[in-house]
């Protein structure tokens, strides 16, 4: 046992040694230790360097508020994690941890030079300094900032661990397993309410669990023993779920909460067994009880950040819970009674302790007890300086003036190896405010207290401002009874011996004889903001607390200012001469403690990141060497290379084959909406720009759908299957949105229409066969069917059968070729496809993908919504005036087509572009200009589609160009990085302007 392990406790098993490594050195701790307690038991205080000045820093607390002891764990493995608080890491065999933000080592850190030039790096230094000269930015400032910024190292490889999500519902959720959380849980669970209790530590009990002395008794037992009994009873309750190692991350509205459960973080690497590391609980609770407790405040005085300066209650916990004495020559510096508990504990174990109290006197029982034990108390005194580089070795104190605004008398130096400070307590109101709760300022102890806002949410215990054992128990009992509508509980007549009093002398910034500019009185330890910085920000005109926070970075480190926010507010209020309650607080945002990315995403990684949709023919495509393209969630064949063909060669071959003989495309992904009802025709009239009433049964028609602002939204062919029955097709990516939009109009604007919409996209598979030989192929598949133009004209549909299976054949064309689409129930899709391929063999039928489809339709000047349109194109801009009905009184978007903006003649309009060099293929998205000499060069448009057409043997492109309609034949320029490409505006239909091929 090391000399600092002075006490045996039941929470640390001193028979089980655990070895670990810190900064390359091996140490031993025990089962039940945290990394922090194990380090302290080895006398290690110095664990890191501060962010800005690289000052040596030591362990300060024992919980999630820890600002200094943040480590990199398991460095050089895939499991490495930065910014982990040593106070929260449960020690395990083989744990490897190292300090951060120091180079070359924590004992000798080059960056420490910043400490000596700190006068020249005040608040806002970066904003003020790195502004000029401009040329310094890229080569000097940015690399410098990047090198010095950040804490710790991110892992470089994918996280190998598993994470999970769980949704739960409960009647009562209790956050915090301290004494008030335990009382509340017991009352809730015993009254038949399904209750969940979550606690971030590995055991229940909060700070009462190690409070074993004569000053605090409950029903004549030591408070820790009373609580042990309560916990034992709690664990027997059926409808109570207790989750330890589970920390609340966020409290959203309507009692929706997120909590992170650590499942394997405390296990040695070889015992994790590839199981789940962390689980994110998504909890919807009927009622929420917040019992998160309070955090002890530090005090703000000169050089208050040396290793060995700790929070008083943490010193007590290390002693009474872990059995570790943080020093043998302790000094306590306090403004309230609670630090006397630490003094009594130390003294009872024979460890030297003296107290410096800024109060003039206190008459509470605990103070009397400390005096009785022989603890020396310096009343009405303050620390003006501390000494010791890597660890504190002495302090200097002076008396306070009557009003506390100054120091008087002589300096007195005391040696010490640990300084325990207490500035009172701050209720953890984070959860309350995250949920939308408001705060009241309580003057007598300078705390923000929650105001109850909601019948389904209360705060109990010290997070509600009850700091004395007696009021914690009684108030919690009373509030919980009222909240859960319970008439009596076992806690109704609890007798409590309390020895503290809520008496405190609050001085936010302690006075000093040294001038303010020369003091380093830290407020935010992790971000190195001092009282001086806050005052500077105020002098420079920052008034809002939110602005001061950002300018000085106070409260913006990984600890989110758990220890610093109150002091920053207090000093601002004092300096500006306003009441603290009127100043408000900064916003408390989730997460309360950092969450891992893994726990946020859960199982939604890799192939589970998004849904993948495949057509029924997918397997065939894979077997035939298809390269796939993502279209929305769909995987569509992009092209089918033969041997080592690239994209270009494959597409050229596929495109030529489709026009020369026959091509086949899997068109199953197009959105399909089944429309039925007596008003179906009227409905289509209202949602498409063209007229539908006169479309004969068995006929197909292309339709263009607009938004109400007149811009093209979607397009597709709709077939009239019967008098009151249509099948609408949409773009692949737009299917879901189109259905939603149509439903919206039906339900909200036109509820009188008798129309029913059903998505049938997945119900049918579609094989689209095009090319001059397509009719011959269809005739072979359907020998009984007459495919003559008279019997089966373009833009019509017929029912048919293949081997007794019903299918629909549409004669429609997106390529400009004679073309048929066969729709069949999805389960027969692959068989249909294989049959087409088999029958088509003699005509050299060629499967083609989306890239070839895009090329073929571009040769014909057919638009693709979303490629040639971008939400700012009207049908008139697309030169598709022919599809906009002049006769119809109304349709979605009609009125917008003659707004002053949409009738402008200089809008961007769709045109064709031909490059002067027929082999030059333009880049899609390239800008188009008319004059490269007049600067600034005016951009007149951009290229939307561009291909080399094997059928025309030249480059073709579609583009949108200002006033393009009137520019046919005009020369324009597409400037590229190395050259200007000369182009000529042309008609957007490049091939078969007479539409003869569809009758081939």
């Amino acid at each position, binding site marked *: 046992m090391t000399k600092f392990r002075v006490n045996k406790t039941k929470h640390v098993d001193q028979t089980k040694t655990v070895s670990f490594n810190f900064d390359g050195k091996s140490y031993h701790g025990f089962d039940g230790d945290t990394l922090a307690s194990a380090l302290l038991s080895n006398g290690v205080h110095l664990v890191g360097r501060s962010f800005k000045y690289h000052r040596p820093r030591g362990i300060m607390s024992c919980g999630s508020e820890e600002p200094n002891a943040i480590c990199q764990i398991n460095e050089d493995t895939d499991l490495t994690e930065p910014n982990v608080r040593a106070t929260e890491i449960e020690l395990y065999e083989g744990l490897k941890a190292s300090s951060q933000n120091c180079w070359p080592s924590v004992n000798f850190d080059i960056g420490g030079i910043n400490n000596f030039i700190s006068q020249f790096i005040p608040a806002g230094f970066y904003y003020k300094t790195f502004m000029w000269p401009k040329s310094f930015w890229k080569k000097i400032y940015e690399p410098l900032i990047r090198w010095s910024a950040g804490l710790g190292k991110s892992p470089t490889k994918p996280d190998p661990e598993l994470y999970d999500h769980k949704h739960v519902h409960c009647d009562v959720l209790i956050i915090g397993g301290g004494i008030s959380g335990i009382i509340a849980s017991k009352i809730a669970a015993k009254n038949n309410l399904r209750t969940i209790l979550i606690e971030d530590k590995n055991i229940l009990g909060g700070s009462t669990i190690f409070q074993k002395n004569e000053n605090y008794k409950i029903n004549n037992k030591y408070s820790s023993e009373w609580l042990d009994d309560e916990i034992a009873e709690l664990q027997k309750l059926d409808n109570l779920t207790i989750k330890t190692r589970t920390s609340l991350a966020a409290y959203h509205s309507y009692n929706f909460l997120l909590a992170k459960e650590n499942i394997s973080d405390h296990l040695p690497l070889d015992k994790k067994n590839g199981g789940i590391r962390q689980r994110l609980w998504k909890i919807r609770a009927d009622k929420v009880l917040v019992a998160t407790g309070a955090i002890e405040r530090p005090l703000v005085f000169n050089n208050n950040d040396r290793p060995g300066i700790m929070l008083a209650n943490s010193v007590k916990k290390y002693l009474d819970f872990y059995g570790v004495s943080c020093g043998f020559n302790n000094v306590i510096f306090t403004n309230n009674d609670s630090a006397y508990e630490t003094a009594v504990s130390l003294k009872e174990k024979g460890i030297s302790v003296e107290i410096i109290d800024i109060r003039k006197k206190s008459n509470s029982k605990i103070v009397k007890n400390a005096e009785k034990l022989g603890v020396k108390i310096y009343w009405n005194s303050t620390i003006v300086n501390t000494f010791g580089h890597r660890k504190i070795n002495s302090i200097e104190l002076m008396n306070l003036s009557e009003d506390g605004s100054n120091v008087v008398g002589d300096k007195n130096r005391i040696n010490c190896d640990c300084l325990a400070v207490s500035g009172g307590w701050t209720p953890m109101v984070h959860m309350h405010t995250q949920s939308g709760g408001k705060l009241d300022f309580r003057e007598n102890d300078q705390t923000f207290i929650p105001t109850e806002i909601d019948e389904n949410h209360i705060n109990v215990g010290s997070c509600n401002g009850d700091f004395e054992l007696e009021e914690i128990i009684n108030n919690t009992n009373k509030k919980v009874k009222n909240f859960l509508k319970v008439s009596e509980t076992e806690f109704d007549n609890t007798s409590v011996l309390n020895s503290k009093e809520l008496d405190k002398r609050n001085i936010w910034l302690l006075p000093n004889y040294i001038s303010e500019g020369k003091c380093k009185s830290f407020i935010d330890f992790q971000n190195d903001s001092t009282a001086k910085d806050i005052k500077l920000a105020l002098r420079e005109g920052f008034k809002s607390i939110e602005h001061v926070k950002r300018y000085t970075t106070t409260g913006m480190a990984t600890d989110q200012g758990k220890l610093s926010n109150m002091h920053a507010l207090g000093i601002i209020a004092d300096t500006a001469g306003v009441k603290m309650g009127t100043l408000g607080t900064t916003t408390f945002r989730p997460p309360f403690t950092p969450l891992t990315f893994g726990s946020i995403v859960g199982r939604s990684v890799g192939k589970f990141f998004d849904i993948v949709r495949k057509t029924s023919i997918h397997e065939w495509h894979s077997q035939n060497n298809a390269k796939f393209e993502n279209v929305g969630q769909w995987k569509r064949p992009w092209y089918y290379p033969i041997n080592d063909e690239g994209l270009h060669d494959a597409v050229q071959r596929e495109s030529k084959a489709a026009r020369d003989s026959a091509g086949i495309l899997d068109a199953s992904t197009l959105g399909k909406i089944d429309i039925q009802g007596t008003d179906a025709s009227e409905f289509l009239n209202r949602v498409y720009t063209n007229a539908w009433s006169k479309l004969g049964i068995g006929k197909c028609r292309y339709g263009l759908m607009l938004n109400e602002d007149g811009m093209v939204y979607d397009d597709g062919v709709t077939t009239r299957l019967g008098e009151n029955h249509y099948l609408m097709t949409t773009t692949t990516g737009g299917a879901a949105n189109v259905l939603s939009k149509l439903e919206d109009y039906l339900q909200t604007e036109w509820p009188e229409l008798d129309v029913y919409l059903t998505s049938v996209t997945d119900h049918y598979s579609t094989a689209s066969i095009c090319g001059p030989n397509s009719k011959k192929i269809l005739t072979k598949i359907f020998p009984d069917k007459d495919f003559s133009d008279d019997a089966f004209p373009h833009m019509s549909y017929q029912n048919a059968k293949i081997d007794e299976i019903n299918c629909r054949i549409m004669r429609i064309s997106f390529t400009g070729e004679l073309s048929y689409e066969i729709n069949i129930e999805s389960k027969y899709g692959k068989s249909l496809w294989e049959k087409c391929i088999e029958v088509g063999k003699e005509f050299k039928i060629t499967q083609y993908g989306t890239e070839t489809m895009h090329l073929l339709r571009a040769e014909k000047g057919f638009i693709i919504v979303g490629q040639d349109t971008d939400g700012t194109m009207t049908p008139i801009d697309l030169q598709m005036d022919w599809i906009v009905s002049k006769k119809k009184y109304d349709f979605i978007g009609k*009125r917008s087509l003659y707004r002053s903006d949409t009738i402008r003649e200089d809008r961007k309009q769709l045109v064709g572009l031909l490059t002067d060099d027929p082999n030059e293929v333009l880049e899609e998205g390239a800008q188009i200009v008319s004059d490269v000499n007049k600067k600034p060069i005016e951009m007149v448009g951009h290229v939307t589609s561009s291909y080399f057409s094997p059928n025309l043997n030249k480059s073709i492109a579609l583009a949108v160009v200002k006033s393009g309609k009137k520019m046919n034949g005009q020369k324009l320029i597409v400037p590229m990085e190395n050259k200007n490409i000369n182009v000529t505006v042309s008609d957007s239909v490049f091939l078969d302007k007479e539409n003869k091929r569809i009758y081939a």
Partner: protein
Amino acid sequence: MFLINCPYCGERDQSEFSCGGEAHIVRPKQPTELSDDQWAEYLFMRKNIKGVQFERWNHAHGCRKWFNMVRDTSNDKIHAVYKMGEKPPVE
């Protein structure tokens, strides 16, 4: 994360719903009779109130029905939900 009482399905998590903006803006019956300004009023102008607001919501991942909601945007309290076509509750 709200708990929304869909008028057709009951209480469901907010993640099942999508918000469709301000409610009770009726599409003009005769758009062609309107001036540019009048049409723009319908097309573009939306209130964005801090306080009690009437909103359209869709149970997108549920029954797919649209309905209306009265919500206080300053504290996210939902005061009422009611079906399309029903009169808004008087405050």
